[in-house]
């Protein structure tokens, strides 16, 4: 058990625990540093007999935060230097509200020596000048040097911004100067979230320019007409916006029996369209009643039985996008899900296209076809990224059989498969087969000689025991460290 926690258990006051808890509260609950000088907060603390133990000045709080950060940084650097894997990065630029600063954020992705997958934020820094690839590359290189991980730079995951190519291009040049083979085109990975968003966007808008339709809480006859032309979901959107425009209308809908407030489409996340349609369908009777009550305003947006059917089909198409996003967006999303997930979405489209005859007036078919084109375009690009294919092959449940089935279904050609096999083998031979395996420690090697594991499960358990023993000792040292360095 930890020293800090022991003191806490004994109900004895320990300044170190109080200081740690204060910082944790400020960091995790987004508390302003000035909270410590707030009179009512101090009064509460005073009543609990501890106000004098809490620093008053926001500057002190800031200093402590910065100091603590400086002390933890080398630990994170060590975790990355010792990692079993390369250090993969995802990064993006962002402009703060009120345009006060342009920042770049970078997250590192790796598996630690103890076998734990980690995704720490490693930098958040202001950008001099614009979000160009060259500008961002400069900062990324600086960060890699500061953490001492230039040689471990792995894959680079970004949205499909055009400056991504320049960024990785610059990094690649720097890596080649450092005598390391780093092929920009292979190491650049497009975030699948972006592809899903583009594909869903195509479902809604096709190739129509839709920028003027974003954030349309202010409704004009023009924008309503544009949404209407998209099909039943355009009508659904208009009705939703109409209801949400005033609290009186929302109350009225509720009085008529609506169980939930309708959800609005969020222009940057097209998956929210699925939520919108679903809440529409759930409130079908109420919505119909509401439209009758507001016949003059909503006459053109009333939904026919056929429209409702198409809405239901739209949910069938959009729901898989929603669940595919959920599957991949978390910190532990896995790369094999990328090709497999996109293949799955492709199947959904194929089914819809088979179900409905080719008819330009049938919105669901048009939307699905447009969305399908976008998805297919990116799927072809991903097929050429060796690492995405390798991720599937290295899944013991798939291997190459997965792609052999895809060839039978005509999703892949024989040539594509043969080419992919050569590329994955080349990746293995050039990047991994010759590397020294630092990962297996002495203790694990001995275990390997004396008791060859019978099942994967037994082997895993053995390794886990090793890891747990290692962890107990390192925890003991670390807890001492907390007290000594922070005093």
């Amino acid at each position, binding site marked *: 058990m*930890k020293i800090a926690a022991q003191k806490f258990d004994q109900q004895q006051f320990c300044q170190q625990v109080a200081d*740690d808890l204060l*910082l*944790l509260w400020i*960091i*995790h609950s*987004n508390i*302003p*540093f000035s909270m410590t000088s707030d009179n009512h907060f101090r009064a509460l603390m005073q009543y609990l007999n501890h106000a004098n133990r809490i620093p008053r000045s926001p500057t002190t709080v800031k200093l402590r935060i910065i100091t*603590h*950060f400086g002390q*933890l940084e080398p630990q994170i650097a060590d975790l990355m230097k010792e990692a079993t894997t390369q250090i993969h990065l*995802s990064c*993006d630029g*962002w402009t*703060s*509200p009120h345009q006060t*600063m342009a*920042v770049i*954020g970078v*997250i590192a*992705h*790796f*598996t630690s020596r*103890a076998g*734990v997958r980690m*995704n*720490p*934020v*490693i930098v*958040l*820094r202001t950008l001099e000048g614009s979000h160009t690839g060259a500008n961002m590359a400069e900062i990324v290189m600086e960060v890699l040097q500061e953490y001492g991980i230039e040689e471990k730079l*792995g894959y680079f995951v*970004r*949205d499909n911004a055009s400056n991504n190519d320049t960024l990785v291009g610059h990094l690649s040049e720097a890596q080649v100067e450092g005598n390391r083979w780093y092929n920009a085109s292979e190491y650049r990975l497009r975030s*699948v*979230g972006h592809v899903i968003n583009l594909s869903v966007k195509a479902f809604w808008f096709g190739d129509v320019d839709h920028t003027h339709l974003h954030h349309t809480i202010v409704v004009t006859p023009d924008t309503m007409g544009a949404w209407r032309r998209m099909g039943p979901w355009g009508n659904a959107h208009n009705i939703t916006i109409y209801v949400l425009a005033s609290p009186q209308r929302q109350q009225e809908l509720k009085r008529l029996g609506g169980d939930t407030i309708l959800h609005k489409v969020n222009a940057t996340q097209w998956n929210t369209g699925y939520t919108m349609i679903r809440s529409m369908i759930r409130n079908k009777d109420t919505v119909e009643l509401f439209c009758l009550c507001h016949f003059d305003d909503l006459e053109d947006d009333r939904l026919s039985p056929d429209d409702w059917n198409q809405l239901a089909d739209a949910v069938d198409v959009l729901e898989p996008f929603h669940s595919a996003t959920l599957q*991949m967006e*978390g*910190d532990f999303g896995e790369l094999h*899900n*990328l090709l497999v997930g996109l293949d799955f979405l492709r199947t959904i489209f194929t089914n819809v296209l088979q179900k409905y005859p080719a008819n330009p007036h049938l919105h669901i078919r048009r939307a699905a076809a447009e969305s399908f084109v976008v998805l297919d375009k990116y799927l072809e690009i991903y097929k050429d990224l060796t690492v995405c294919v*390798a991720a599937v092959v*290295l*899944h*013991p*449940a798939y*291997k190459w*059989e997965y792609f052999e089935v895809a060839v039978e279904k005509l999703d892949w050609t024989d040539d594509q498969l043969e080419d992919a096999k050569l590329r994955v083998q080349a*990746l*293995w031979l050039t990047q991994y087969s010759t*590397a020294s395996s630092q990962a*297996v420690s002495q203790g694990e*090697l001995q*275990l390997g000689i004396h008791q060859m594991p019978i099942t*994967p499960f037994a082997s*895993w358990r053995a390794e886990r025991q090793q890891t747990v023993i290692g962890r107990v000792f390192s*925890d003991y040292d*670390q807890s001492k460290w*907390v007290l000594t360095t922070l005093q």
Partner: protein
Amino acid sequence: MGADYIAVDEYNRYLATPTEPCITNPFLFWQSQREMFPKLSSMALDILSIPPMSAGVERLFSQCKIMLTDRRNRLQIDSLQAVECMKSWDGLQNGLPQVVITGTQMEVVEAGEQLYADHHGDRDLGVEVM
């Protein structure tokens, strides 16, 4: 089975074995294969550490937006970086303890322990039939 067996090209050796449809968690599978496939497991774990989406960065910026409210618009980038980094580092190392509050009980847990439990918890290898 001995050193000779291990020395055979690991990639071909892996491909030569039949697929294992019951395995649902390749990360744990490859962790367990470190001795049998020292280099191929490194490759697999490396690739499995790559996120398919850059959603983490988007979440980071949503957090920044919450931090930079109208009242806190003077917050400087070094403070913002320190707070956001440490938020994501919690659980990675042992510098800051984690606080676990359950009902009226409060416990201070050394960071790292919790994460490890989350990751390996009660789950088995992802093999459904053993």
